[in-house]
């Protein structure tokens, strides 16, 4: 049938009287890189948590189409959420007793360029290094879907840029379906195949990004998306 892997159908989510999501319909194709942008409080995290099965919708459904359902989606949180009492390596392999997992964990640490830090405790690492460990941990079970909730928000611009490239590289190589929540339209325009704007508790606007775009095209897309978020005519100004 269709190539979609995530189907969100008529989803509503209420916290008591507060409507966090209203009538969200969304279909995401296998291997796509989605950026979910919007103002804070717009329901981005809520949508992501529903897709991750960390919470249930009040009504509607979230379907994941795949043959094996276990360990299919992995969630990377805004905070690193590493376990400080374990070594970096154990933070990757902690959910399994299998001997092979240690080897796999070491490979993933090498991938995020932290191979030499396997024996360290996480509080010996910098913020960017911790996020790379968290990324490696999310990749441990070979997920098909990677959900990233503003994982780079706390990082400085340079580290952030490097992390963006690393994430893009890994997602493309491993053919992951990725949803990245961000409040940074430039980041969205730079990384995503498709940008979805969350506004007033629903997905109000979306746009496909051109392939192999240059800096100029990224700026244009970012402006247009920002305009949609803020209900303003796109002007290339210091709006961000």
């Amino acid at each position, binding site marked *: 049938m269709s190539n979609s892997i995530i189907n969100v159908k008529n989803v509503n989510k209420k916290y008591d009287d507060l409507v966090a999501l209203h009538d969200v319909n969304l279909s995401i194709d296998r291997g796509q890189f989605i950026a979910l942008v919007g103002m804070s409080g717009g329901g981005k995290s809520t949508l992501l948590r529903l897709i*991750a099965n*960390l919470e249930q919708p009040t009504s509607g459904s979230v379907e994941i189409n795949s043959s094996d359902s*276990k*360990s299919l989606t*992995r*969630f990377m*949180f805004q*905070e690193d*959420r590493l*376990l*400080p*009492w*374990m070594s970096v390596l154990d933070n990757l392999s*902690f*959910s399994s007793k299998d001997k092979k997992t240690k080897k796999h964990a070491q490979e993933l640490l090498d991938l995020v360029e932290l191979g030499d830090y396997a024996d*360290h*405790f996480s*509080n*010996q690492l910098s913020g960017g290094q911790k996020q790379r460990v968290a990324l490696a*941990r999310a990749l441990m079970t070979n997920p098909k879907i990677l959900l990233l909730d503003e994982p780079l928000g706390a990082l400085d611009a340079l580290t952030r840029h490097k992390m963006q490239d690393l994430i893009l590289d890994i997602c493309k190589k491993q053919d992951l379906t990725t949803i990245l929540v961000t409040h940074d339209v430039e980041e969205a325009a730079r990384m995503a195949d498709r940008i979805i704007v969350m506004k007033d508790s629903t997905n109000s606007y979306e746009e496909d990004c051109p392939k192999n775009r240059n800096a100029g095209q990224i700026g244009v897309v970012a402006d247009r998306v920002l305009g949609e978020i803020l209900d303003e005519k796109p002007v290339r100004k210091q709006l961000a």
Partner: protein
Amino acid sequence: MQKAVSLSERKKFSVPVNKILPFLIPIIVILAWQVSSSLGWLSSSILPSPLAVLQDGITLTASGELPKNLSVSLYRATVGLLIGGGIGFLLGFINGMSNTCRMLFDSSIQMFRNIPHLALIPLIILWLGINESAKISLVAIGTMFPVYINTFHGIRSVDPDLLEMGKSYELSKKQLFFKIIFPSALPQILVGIRYALGVMWTTLIVAETISANSGIGYMANNAEDFMDMETVILCIVVYAILGKISDLVAKSFESILLDWQKTGRSKA
């Protein structure tokens, strides 16, 4: 350049000084005490000299009296702590993990906790006499509460974000406990155990002084009846040493079990 050299030199000197410093005051006090006794400023019926106390210790060790009473006290302390700490940990564990248990037990436990456990001595003597179980029960009751409260709070204050992370990584209930809940509560649990060690000795001293026919507390009480000041002081010194040793043991447990806490880099 000059400055850097002198700084590093100062560092070299400060290492042994730091090691000696904590012992300085005890050494001065003991020396002053010995000198005052030797010069006759202190009557031996009020305060015998350190050397006399040491002499007494050697005699009582040779006669086997001190080792026998010491091992009896150690036995009561250890067994009482194991029982009390064990019950405290179990109660803290079930109340920390289950809301139903917490609502069922916690307020009753809090009520019981507000009774000073030493006030139970007459009751316990009436129930259990002056045999071993009386002393052990008292130590157990005294040490139970600090371990309970700290285990309970340790488990309750586990970061919910980490729990959510564990669940999203499909950890089993058992894994959640051993990988996340227990290690995160451990620093607090160890605080409870360290506190319990203090309670353990105080309780035992009082219990042995009031009703016992063996143990260090009994030795002190017995010596008092015979106006044997050397032995009275000796027993106090023995208690001080036992307290210090248990504190050191607790500290070394902490530094082994919580090695990850020492590695943090400065948050500057």
